[in-house]
């Protein structure tokens, strides 16, 4: 069976195994380090809500990232935020991938009228910039963290549908699908147990990218006052809270949380680009 499922195009993971992959290594190391600090860190550093020093202390040996307008330690808040930000990013991406891939494989495998309807719906979803769609949905269904994850996920479903559908369209013509059908599998079983596992690769790449977009979108929404609110320790909320201090000179209040967002999203991009075989 495995011999039959191997696609005609060279498998990217295998052909690229021999070259050096510095970007992938960098991305994995950064995400790994964040996970470790995110799990252990909150037991080590100060309470994110504690006002432990004078307000607006610049970065120093004692407070590496300085303190904010309430005298809270910014490094401690950044470390406490890791769990929430990564959990949000991953859950949004997984939710969008599960729904999008399921719709995509059915649409691609069945084709015909079903496919036409699904593709029109996807066009409509894609007529909104994802950020605006998430914003409108969140306001309509009510502002809470689970709703935030759902709204962001719905806004990211369309690319998953397209990617998995495109791959299923070519997969369904292959011999193993015919073999499954003649051995008595129904369309549901053929689509999900046979076509889907062989069409999911592009969606896995998209997963890492969507994880990053979601962290960026959470930050953007926080600045508009929806999604996650102060005093929650979350990177986007911290950038939003620090925005007004930028003009008065306390650059560190927004700089460090924003830097962590950029590093995390860049690491996810590095992993995704490498998996996509976009390398040199």
């Amino acid at each position, binding site marked *: 069976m495995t011999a039959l499922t191997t696609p005609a195009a060279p498998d990217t993971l295998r052909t690229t195994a021999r070259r050096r992959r510095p970007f992938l290594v960098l991305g994995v190391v950064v995400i790994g380090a964040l996970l470790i600090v995110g799990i252990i860190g909150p037991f080590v550093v100060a309470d994110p809500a504690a006002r432990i020093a004078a307000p607006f202390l610049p970065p120093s040996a004692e407070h590496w990232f300085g303190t904010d307008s309430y005298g809270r330690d910014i490094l401690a808040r950044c470390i406490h935020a890791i769990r929430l930000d990564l959990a949000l990013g991953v859950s949004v991406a997984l939710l969008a991938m599960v729904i999008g891939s399921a719709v995509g494989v059915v649409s691609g495998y069945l084709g015909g009228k079903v496919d036409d309807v699904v593709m*029109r*719906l996807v*066009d*409509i979803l894609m*007529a*909104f*910039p*994802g*950020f*605006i*769609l998430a*914003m*409108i*949905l969140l*306001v*309509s*269904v*009510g502002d809470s963290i689970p709703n935030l994850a759902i709204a962001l996920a719905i806004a990211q479903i369309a690319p998953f549908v397209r990617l998995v559908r495109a791959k299923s369209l070519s997969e369904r013509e292959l011999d193993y699908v015919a073999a499954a059908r003649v051995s008595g599998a129904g369309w549901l079983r053929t689509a999900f147990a046979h076509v889907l596992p062989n069409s999911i690769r592009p969606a896995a790449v998209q997963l890492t990218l969507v994880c*990053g977009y979601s962290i*960026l979108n959470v*930050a*953007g929404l926080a*600045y*508009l*006052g*929806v999604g996650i609110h102060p005093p929650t320790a979350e990177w*986007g909320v911290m*950038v*939003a809270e*620090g*925005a007004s201090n*930028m*003009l008065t*000179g306390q*650059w560190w209040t*927004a*700089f460090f949380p*924003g*830097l962590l*967002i*950029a*590093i995390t*999203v*860049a690491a996810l*991009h*590095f992993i995704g*680009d490498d998996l996509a075989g*976009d390398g*040199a």
Partner: protein
Amino acid sequence: MVRYLLRRLAISAITVVGLVLVVFLVVRILPGDAAAARLGPEATQDDIDALRTRMGLDQPIWVQLGDYLAGLVRGDMGTAISTGRPVADELLSRLPATIELAAGGLLIALLLGFPLGMLAASRRGRTSDAAARLFAVLGSSMAPLWLGLLLIYGLYSLAGLFPGPVGRLPIGTPPPTSITGLFVLDGLLTGNLDVVWQSMRALALPALTLGLGASAAVLKMVRSAMIATEDAGFTRTARAYGVPASQVLWRDRLRNAMLQVLTAIGLVIGFLLGGNVIVERLFSWPGMGRIAYDALGSNDLELLQGYALIVGVIYIALNFVVDLVYGVIDPRIRLGGRAA
């Protein structure tokens, strides 16, 4: 070409109708009550009921939908709860500011992304390629808010090169006579060069904030599209016939790559429109995104609904234009082949 055009037009029309339905339903499924939200916490139930009747909220959903559609056909998008003015007026009066900002962002994205993408493709695997790709990843990893703050801090607070985030013109400078509503263009048309200069300076930082992020997407797409043409049959044929290398690059490869690049530009414009709410708030830019932000704060769903609709329609219209340009660039489409 005519058949292709009609087909794309029909698809765009269906998408617009779907968009209207989605926007209408999303706002109607909300658990809150628009009438109660408008009157505030002190309103009595009788007041709320009276307003519900006046707003038509007590009607069945399909009657409401019919009224809404009939209104849209007349150009009536309802009344903004927070200001009492028609939604269409509120939004369309701010459209030029948003277009000026998006155009500035697009210009920067193309000026940066196109040459860097061509460079990266022609020097694939070398240091300059890796540097360009690194730039692309970093550009798409920064939150627009954060990037904007860094630009304000570096180029306004520290260096003093650009005006602060106070909108389209410095306080006290009168806007140019309105012809198009785009200050740079109006200034040029009326010969008011001081306004042209001032508004370009005010536009620089917000446009850079939007453009840097968007340039990453353009760079990636130009690079991969150009690489895809490197080993294509037409490239080999042209080379085998002894066509000069520069002509193969500029005439054959670039023209074929343009199809994918155009799609990317459509997506980039979507990104520019979507990022607008944040950038317009940060730079006090009086565009549609700024209105959407105010509407969020005052729970003005009519206004938000109108905003989503206008952005969606602009987006669909742009993609239709992209399809048209496809037809012009690609004779396979123009001469009646199947649409890709």
